[in-house]
């Protein structure tokens, strides 16, 4: 598979009154054509900021991309001027946001909004664009599409609006679709509908998908590879099976154990990750996860771990190996008590 996107040492900082927030602090990853990559992590881990940086949608001020390159189809997105960027946004790279309510313009019909992108990027006439808009709505399973194109967003349900967003995003056959928490606001049965449509269309068009989510079940179902983010860094990266079955970073281990499983027949007490993620305005020495880590050793307080390839294609940022070092596990709270 050909390389589609390469993010190299990306740093996106926010310059606030409280100090510099290092929201994304040197991430490097790539995405191949037709591949589905999931970015997971908790709120504030930097996953949305990473996605916004790709499209250069970071509000400036206070935010700024201070370092790094983002190479898409061989060109650095960070060096492009506004006109070049506009020809890529919505065309080669499309985005679906979390909130289907606020991402559509309430005073334009669904048809008008679908036509806008098609006419702009594909240069179709109004009539042809309308025909295409109806086809797109049919593609995402909106019944009576030829009538519904004349409706306004408020006449659509939440799930239908998100399907419209997907139709709009895929209208110009993008090479990359960025979906930021695309179904978080939707009910489970509607969530399943929307995700199945998105995955099917992406496969048909051979579109690569970057899906940002905190729902590990969605990752398990749709992602080929997973990047786990913590405190603005990628702490683990690998195929979905490797990361779920043999997590190599204690944070991922904790994340997997803290989610109850739908197919669990026995009641097992949930494992928690004690404490809170660090404040990103402070300079962090050593491993950012150390205060909450059950496997931390002295080295973790001083040496910032690098992202290392622990097995072929499976990378982790950790001095230890939680798979092997299970015996030396000491709950973080006890370790802190002992130190005092």
């Amino acid at each position, binding site marked *: 598979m050909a390389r589609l996107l390469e993010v190299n040492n990306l740093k996106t900082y926010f310059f606030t009154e409280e100090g510099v927030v290092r929201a994304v602090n040197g991430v490097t990853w790539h995405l191949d054509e037709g591949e589905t990559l999931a970015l997971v992590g908790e709120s504030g881990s930097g996953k949305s900021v990473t996605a916004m940086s790709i499209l250069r949608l970071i509000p400036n001020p206070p935010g700024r991309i201070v370092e790094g390159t983002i190479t898409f189809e061989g060109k650095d997105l960070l060096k492009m001027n506004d006109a070049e960027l506009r020809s890529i946004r919505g065309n080669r790279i499309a985005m679906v946001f979390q909130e289907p309510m606020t991402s559509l313009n309430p005073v334009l019909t669904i048809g008008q909004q679908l036509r806008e992108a098609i006419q702009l990027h594909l240069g179709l006439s109004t009539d042809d664009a309308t025909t295409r808009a109806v086809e797109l709505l049919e593609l995402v399973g909106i019944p009576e599409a030829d009538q519904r194109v004349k409706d306004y967003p408020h006449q659509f349900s939440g799930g239908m609006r998100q399907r419209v967003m997907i139709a709009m995003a895929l209208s110009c056959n993008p090479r990359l679709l960025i979906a930021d928490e695309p179904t978080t606001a939707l009910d489970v049965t509607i969530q399943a509908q929307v995700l199945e449509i998105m995955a099917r269309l992406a496969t048909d068009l051979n579109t690569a998908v970057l899906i940002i989510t905190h729902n590990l079940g969605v990752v398990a179902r749709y992602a080929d590879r997973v990047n786990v983010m913590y405190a603005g860094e990628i702490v683990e990266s690998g195929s979905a099976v490797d990361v779920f079955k043999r997590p190599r970073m204690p944070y991922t281990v904790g994340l997997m154990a803290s989610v109850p499983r739908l*197919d669990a027949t026995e009641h097992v007490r949930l494992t928690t990750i004690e404490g809170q993620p660090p404040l990103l305005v402070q300079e962090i020495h050593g491993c950012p996860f150390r205060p909450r880590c059950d496997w931390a050793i002295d080295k973790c307080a001083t040496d910032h771990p690098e992202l290392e390839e622990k097995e072929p294609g499976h990378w982790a940022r950790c001095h230890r190996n939680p798979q092997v070092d299970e015996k030396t596990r000491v709950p973080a709270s006890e370790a802190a008590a002992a130190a005092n």
Partner: protein
Amino acid sequence: MTTTASGSAGSKVAYQSTVKHGETLVNVEGLKMYFPVNAGLFVQKKVADVRAVDNLSFHVLKGETLGLVGESGCGKSTTGRALIQLYRPTDGSVNFGGTELTKLKGNDLRRFRRRMQMIFQDPYSSLNPRMSVQQIIGEPLAIHGLYKGNERKERIEYILQAVGLNPAFARRYPHEFSGGQRQRIGIGRALAVEPEFIVCDEPVSALDVSIQAQVINLLEDLQEQFGLTYLFIAHDLAVVRHISDRVAVMYLGKMMELADRNELYQNPLHPYTKALLSAVPITDPELERTRERIILTGDVPSPLRPPPGCVFNTRCPIAVDECRERVPEWREIVPTHWVACHRV
């Protein structure tokens, strides 16, 4: 009420509950909660009813957690609120340990509220930003005239400790806490008056997964420590399976199925329960990719105009004519497994 709480502030003004562990604490019969829809420019006239909750019958056992799941707008939150009389039901009976709640009014009802409390979903909007933590937890104590003066201070410290917060934070304000800590404050407020029954309305939906696990564990610990009974309302089916003893599934104001936790998840009988369970991906990539899924088509109909017959018939993959004509009966198919479906 028996509590294992120790310390002077642990349990002082306990009332005597006669309901024993495992007996029916709350019994609900034919519960209906309709909200009128008014129209008219000058003279408002009632034109229709939203049947948010329509004819529910079930019970909650003392000491158990009854999970209540369903999609938004199915009436699960309304059910929780109607149970503890935050909404006054349109019809039906709610019997709490021998007392008919729908008939209680004024001071009698207020006094009774001590025994049933609520934990809310949003830890941001459910705490008054102008009140400190000790005021938030002290307010229900003041309303019910419990723990005066220094004892109240001790009680507040005791509660803070019970929910895993540092008592030194008592004078702080909600904005100084994280989402998970705020939810602990909300739990402390509910716990302060020593209730028997707590309605937890989506208590962990707004929290990140690792914080969610902390709050779930806390709720389980408190249940054991204080002998609490929970009605746990949530849309996350995995969380509900984890915390509940029995689980009820709602759709468009009606109960579709109710059974013991493992029975419901391993042997769902109602087509809606089956679809709901299959829509939730399992956090195991190998298993998940080979799993058969039932994808429902269409959206939930408006509760203003629910379809005739079974409310699920418009999306049901196995609906027949009977389902479009006759409302299915709520029946106990095998002991403790209830379902409302013609096709079972």
